[in-house]
């Protein structure tokens, strides 16, 4: 019992010394150090490769700075009283219900300001972005729109291109599984649905995602600006192999792409099997 009390006292004094606490905190943070120092790692997203990608980045960092600002105020207002106003016997706290007219005015002004400045700022930019980019799905008639139909299934992505005849659901359609080839610099417009459960088409480098639901067709689009290979992921839990439902997006320069498309369309005709009803999914493009 005595030993126990003694040890407790020891521990207390050790603990209450600020240095111990600080070094403990540091040690814990250092738990991450080996991982942090090792090379060849990524700490952020891959650079964006779609024309509206910058909008996401700008908005993200705008919110981040606003949050860093607000949170700093919060932290400072925690720290100051925590140090300055610690308990001292005999001292009395400042008696204040915060119900005076002055306080009410202050609270109203601050909350109005946070809303009108911070929230409204973000809102206005977000609305503009939505209308100009994410929701501004290009119409078929627009020049240069490249259309792709998507059928998601457990656990693969099926993509369908129109092929040489410019129509979906014909023998010369190009079918790709877990691979998607599109031309650089043209708006790519998707319509997609699912065969079984909900999946979500997520192309991080292009900064968008969209759910494809069974029984319904959803649209989404992006415009690649850099040729290259990018990862396609499935972002909606879809069962056992959800984590392995990935594919690759190839963005080709337009002349390479045209060659590829012509070849692929011919291959499509060759491989076309009128008996295979499974492979004949397609729908009329919805306006």
């Amino acid at each position: 019992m005595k030993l126990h009390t003694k040890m407790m006292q020891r521990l207390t004094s050790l603990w209450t010394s600020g240095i111990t606490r600080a070094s403990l905190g540091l040690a814990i943070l250092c738990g991450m150090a080996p991982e942090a120092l090792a090379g060849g790692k990524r700490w952020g997203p891959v650079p964006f490769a779609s024309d509206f990608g910058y909008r996401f980045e700008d908005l993200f960092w705008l919110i981040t700075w606003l949050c860093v600002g607000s949170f700093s105020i919060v932290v400072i207002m925690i720290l100051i009283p925590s140090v300055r106003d610690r308990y001292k016997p005999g001292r009395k706290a400042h008696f204040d219900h915060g119900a005076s007219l002055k306080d009410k005015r202050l609270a109203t002004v601050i909350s109005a300001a946070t809303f009108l400045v911070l929230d409204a700022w973000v809102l206005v930019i977000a609305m503009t972005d939505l209308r100009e980019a994410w929701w501004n799905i290009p119409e078929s008639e627009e020049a240069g729109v490249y259309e792709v139909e998507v059928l998601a299934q457990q656990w693969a992505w099926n993509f369908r291109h129109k092929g040489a005849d410019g129509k979906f659901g014909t023998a010369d359609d190009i079918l790709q599984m877990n691979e998607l080839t599109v031309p650089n610099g043209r708006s790519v417009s998707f319509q997609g649905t699912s065969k079984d459960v909900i999946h979500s088409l997520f192309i991080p480098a292009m900064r968008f995602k969209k759910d494809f639901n069974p029984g319904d067709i959803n649209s989404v689009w992006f415009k690649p600006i850099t040729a290259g290979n990018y990862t396609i992921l499935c972002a909606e839990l879809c069962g056992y192999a959800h984590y392995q439902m990935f594919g690759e997006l190839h963005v080709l320069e337009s002349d390479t792409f045209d060659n590829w498309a012509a070849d692929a369309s011919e291959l499509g005709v060759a491989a076309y099997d009128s008996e295979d009803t499974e492979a004949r999914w397609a729908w009329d493009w919805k306006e």
Partner: protein
Amino acid sequence: MSGDHIHAEPTNFFRKHVFSVDHKVIAKQFLWFGLVWLGIGGIMAMLIRWQLANPGDPVPVIGSFLFPRTGGVIDPATYNTLFTMHGTIMIFLGLTPLIIGCVGNWAIPLMIGARDMIFPLLNCLSFWTVFAGGCVGFYSLFVPLGATEAGWTGYPTLSTTVNGLGSGETLWAIAVFLIGASSIMGGINYMTTVIRLRAPGMTWGRLPLTVWGLFLTSALNVLFIPVIGSAMLLLIMDRVFGTTFFVPASIMQGGGGGDPILYQHLFWIFGHPEVYILILPAWGIIGDLLSFFARKPAFGYRAQVGAMTAVTVLSAVVYGHHMFTTGLSAMLGESFMLLTMIISVPAEILFFSWLHTIWRGNIRFTVPMLWSVGVIFVFGLGGLTGIYCATIGTDIFLHDTYFIVGHFHLTMAASALFAAFGAIVFFFPKMFGRMMSPLLGKLHFWLTIIPLVSVFCMMFVMGYAGMPRRYYDHTSMEFLASLQHMNKAATHMAFLLGSAQLIFVFNFIKSRWFGKPASTNPWEVGTLDWQTETPLPHYNFKDIPTVVTGPHEFSHPALPEGRDWISMTEELPSA
């Protein structure tokens, strides 16, 4: 009338400790129940973290016992079950029983000066219903063909087809239904009690904030749990009787015609209020605790109540922000974005009030106070990251990534959980007549908050880098493998966090039986619960007290030298 709905003190063991109708006993039942489930959910979290850092490696020590079929390896199906049940358990069987079941049952009657809940039998039924729900949920882990694998959100058509022949998913839905029924019973009881059984003088303007938070939570429980109840019924019918509420025609041979998105609407009409169901009591608790330990009146009491009420109302109309990527119409999407953003205004008023409550106080950094200040910190992080989620332009990328996981752990698993810890430590002396060790308490606090913030802030980085949630293994493709180092780091921190909880368990159990005996009012506060004797008599109050003073009149200038608090039953001396 002092004989107000009194039930006689039970004499036999069963009526006293098992099927008790006494709110104090039921509160303790909820406490133990919630802690055990928190432990189970916590172990699941550790397994999740193990798998994410070391995909496909057998779990050390307990692995071969838990997953004998695979030699201790977590397979993808098991992983899906793990996070689904982790989420369900933590929310419905861990936090809800603690912060609503335990704190509500303990604090409401004692703080408003009542002898018990207004419907004691319903109260007892409420506990045993959630208990049954827990049993069904636990049992579902062991059925043939596997437990639920569809996420805690249980979206069809995955949830209508997953292990289609097995009963795992169905039992999960039944468990959620039962737990919900329990919450409704509790909600009705709490609301009626607060409205009808307040002691004389306990006006609405003098209710402790804890009671306000619980009252508003109860309103949300009563109104929105039925929505999930019905959704679960429809889901069960789809699975068991072949109806097609959520199954579209395109994937049914004949029949069909349902709508999987309808389920998402129903789920989130409930689901969004649910997250405020968890945070409102937390806000109330820390509103009180900050004032109690800063020895200052709660700053802007009315503003705080108003803000909480505003959030309660708003919570009903923002649910669509969980569905930004499902193909919601542009008009609906923008409205939900705007409405969601409006919630930051009442949240801001709460922060304003809390921070001014501790400003120029005489702060006693007891363990409950540490947790409360901790809540301001972590809820700041969690709440502010809610803004990224609310903004469609950023949510289109961040949705279903680890960014969201970080957001909701900082709000629920940190803020609400911290408030629950704070409340447990705070009420402990009255509950068990003993103090919890402050030393161990402080150690537990620091060893929780530091790793917790690191784990979940790490997730913001992962999410921003594009790592999707609910993935069994992030190393099977180059894109995610280059982020694996963060998974490892988060896992190390999470293990530290998990181990730190053992300090709490030790402290709790040791103090329960061997702690320092507590005085009647160890924290020196004025609310009615602390004016009673310890241990509490069967009827709480020999005579129902009459309230004449507010709950937070600390450091009133008229108080005599050397005393900075006044009981709610004492008249303030005129200055």
